[in-house]
């Protein structure tokens, strides 16, 4: 029958039209106001078309999302060197930058003239930056990272679009906040949360370097992205309490290992009980530090 194909197509259109209102009917017109709906609407279970009500509502940004770069500095409450740059002005980011938008002035000692591992000035022209992430990828000191802030519009490009060092510097806690998994991986790869060059400088100055431990990496205020539940809440939720207990155990093991001789990672991995399989508890997402730690150790063991 002529016209059958068009009718079939119209039926598809009708289905789409109907699907768009399924959520409205289900939540009685309140689909945008229910926070539980957020992951559903922005995931595979989404039904029908929906609009993200920008700027009242925004899309979730994944950890690896890259926009313009920023420089990592010590937290303001760092015991020895608050706000100190991690950057050593080695210039690798400036070299790998495809559009060459990074300008660095290397520091030098005013008396001896020898280079000092700290930049005097650091500029990024964000008009030129192509957000490729090479600087962050190849920085050997984890000192430059890609930011998630994509709202950079300003009224005047000549005064606002060249970011200087002050504008670029953000504390480590910010990085741990926006990219908890990556920050943890990097910290393990570094062997601690401190900058090697800072540690060296502190040793030179006669200060005792802080031994990097898991405790001082994560006993600090937790990233707000996954705030620690209040104690009673943890008691109320047995799964959570179990996880906390496991984490404490892991930390204790880690401390013990660090006090003693350098541990063979592979051996330790064998001793540690296998991490609990990632069974989703309820529909709450789970970030299992123990399993992650195990994995990273394993990877390090495989590498070396």
């Amino acid at each position: 029958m002529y016209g059958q194909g068009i009718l079939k197509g119209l039926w598809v259109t009708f289905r789409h039209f109907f699907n768009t209102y399924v959520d409205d009917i289900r939540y009685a017109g309140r689909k945008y106001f229910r926070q539980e709906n957020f992951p559903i609407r922005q995931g595979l279970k989404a039904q029908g078309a929906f609009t993200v009500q920008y700027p009242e509502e925004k899309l979730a940004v994944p950890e690896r999302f890259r926009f313009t770069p920023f420089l990592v500095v010590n937290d303001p409450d760092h015991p020895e060197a608050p706000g100190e740059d991690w950057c050593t002005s080695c210039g690798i980011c400036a070299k790998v930058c495809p559009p060459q938008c990074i300008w660095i002035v290397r520091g030098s000692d005013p008396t001896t003239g020898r280079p000092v591992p700290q930049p005097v000035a650091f500029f990024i022209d964000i008009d030129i930056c192509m957000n490729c992430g090479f600087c962050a990828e190849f920085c050997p000191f984890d000192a430059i990272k890609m930011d998630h802030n994509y709202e950079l519009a300003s009224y005047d490009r000549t005064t606002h679009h060249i970011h200087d060092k002050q504008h670029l510097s953000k504390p480590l806690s910010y990085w741990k906040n926006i990219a908890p998994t990556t920050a943890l991986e990097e910290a393990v790869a570094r062997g601690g949360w401190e900058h090697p060059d800072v540690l060296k400088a502190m040793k030179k100055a006669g200060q005792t370097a802080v031994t990097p431990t898991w405790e001082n990496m994560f006993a600090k205020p937790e990233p707000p992205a996954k705030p620690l539940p209040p104690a009673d809440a943890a008691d109320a939720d047995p799964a959570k309490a179990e996880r906390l207990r496991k984490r404490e155990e892991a930390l204790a093991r880690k401390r013990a290992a660090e006090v003693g001789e350098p541990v063979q990672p592979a051996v330790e991995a064998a001793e540690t009980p296998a991490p609990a399989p990632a069974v989703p508890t309820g529909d709450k997402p789970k970030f299992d530090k123990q399993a992650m730690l195990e994995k990273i150790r394993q990877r390090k063991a495989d590498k070396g």
Partner: protein
Amino acid sequence: MVDHPIVETTDIKAAVDALKQKFPDTIQDDTRQGYGGIIVDKNHLVEVAAALRDEYGFDYLSSATAVDYFGISDHMEMVYHAYRTSGGPALVFKAQTSRDNPEIPSLINIWPGVDFQEREAWDLYGIRFPGHPNLKRILLWEGFDGHPMRKDWQEAYYEEDHKPFESRWPDGWVHRAEERNVYGKNVKYPADFDLSKLSDKSEESLYADLGLGVSIQELTDESHIKTDRLVVNMGPHHPSTHGVFRMIVTLNGETIETLEPVMGYLHRNHEKIGERNTFLHNMPFTDRLDYLSSMGNNLGYALAVEQLLANGARYQPPTYRAECIRVLMVELTRIVNHYWAIGFLLNDLGAFFTPALYAIAEREKILDFFEATAGSRMMCNYMRFGGVFKDLPERIRGVASRMNDLVRDYNTMEYLTELINERIPQSIDELDEYLTDSEIIKSRTIGVGYLPPEMAIAYSTAGPLLRASGVPYDVRRADPYSIYPELDFDVAVRYNGDIYDRYLIRLDEMRESVRILKQILPRLERTAGEPIFAGSKQHTPRVPLGEAYGRVENPKGELGFYVVSAGDEKGPQNPWRYHVRAPSFISLTALGPMCIGHKVADVVAILGSIDIVLGETDR
């Protein structure tokens, strides 16, 4: 077309030997370090090319490009890559000419597909092609001074020959380019160029070949109806051109007599930028070519440079997991691209945006995965030489950190499994149900824009355009790379060569991609935790001398990267030549012939069925 029996040669070497016997004094091996193929005396180039096509079966000329060896051996050369549509590797042949008076006979009568590529070589290198009927600039405009790809040509904002630039470190006080190059001083005109006659000159040369002295001519057709012959400009600013693209159409009434594409509005001399860059720097630039399928572009470039690196001593090929991830990404990209192509083909047919939005709704989920893995939805910059940027994340976890810290969090493998097994097949079926039987679509597309298979091959078209004309040529099977040989899939092919078949073949290819992806999932699970990088990641690898042509079956067709590493004996850090064989660009050669005899409204649909992206066409 083929009068002589095709010489049965199993490999390229046999073909070359046979060719040498036939043309004893005109052919030599290319013996430069790292180079392959043959050098043909340019005076006999046409004969050799004709023999290659007719007697040895190299009927498909994939790429023709120029290289300027200024300062090395002070000559220019054209490099041709010819393939058999029955499959197999390339026969590379070159013709050399002097830099002062570069001239190489045109091969347009052997392979009409070199039309635009020779014009590009004239435009960017200043090589003349006697025999080419329409040799004029293609990407640049008439008022451009010089031929910018020549090694001694410098751009207005020239800093240095190679990146990294000295001024950035260790004394990198920032300065903007315009501070050093005051506005108004960045354009140079040829000596004989009169600015006051600007529009006249450039337009004149465009209309010169249309055979019209005036723009409107009165005609009477067979049935004694008075019509006009007139010239119509479609574009550059027109929603149907998928960007900034112009077609000059001569109409007889409403019937198209000639059509000439005009491009270059988005030209940025990508290849010159590529020569200033280091090898790695080019990776994010390839994203910007066909910006709908950046993963595929990345892979093509990575393959080309890996071919070069493989000549060196310390090269380790990508690990198996890296290859699996690459194929995963590339096939997802193909699905993304075909959603887009089908959706916007319907736009061109007049179904304004409803089908397009239905098609790209699923694309969104794939882009979410790209974003969580590579860091960006479209400018993925994911492949590296010898692996990929990072392994798949364990969880696709996003936080609306700019707003209210709401979290979405899925297990990556679960997400992929559901996406590949449920969502994508469903939505492909839905598109099928929605569009395939529609009488409107059928009457607009069946029999329109017919491209016969011989012409599709001769015009060097690629991808869905070629395969919808009944030529089952797919680089993944014809000249396999990565882990495609071990994967089970069919090369989609349709035989009618019209718009409808080009639409259907995209559906077929999406289904084949889903089939591949279903085989990739268990491989990913099996290799979980294995390294994604063999050896160490280097940011400025020294690349051994030589040439390489990396080609992949991108969603839009064969994407090739011709990369030459020359100059520095220790292994240069910057490519000497970086050429992109862009499928959209070369497929447009066939646009004119396909449109003749159709109506104006069909031009839009035919252009939509080629599926071009101007980022790649104009480079």
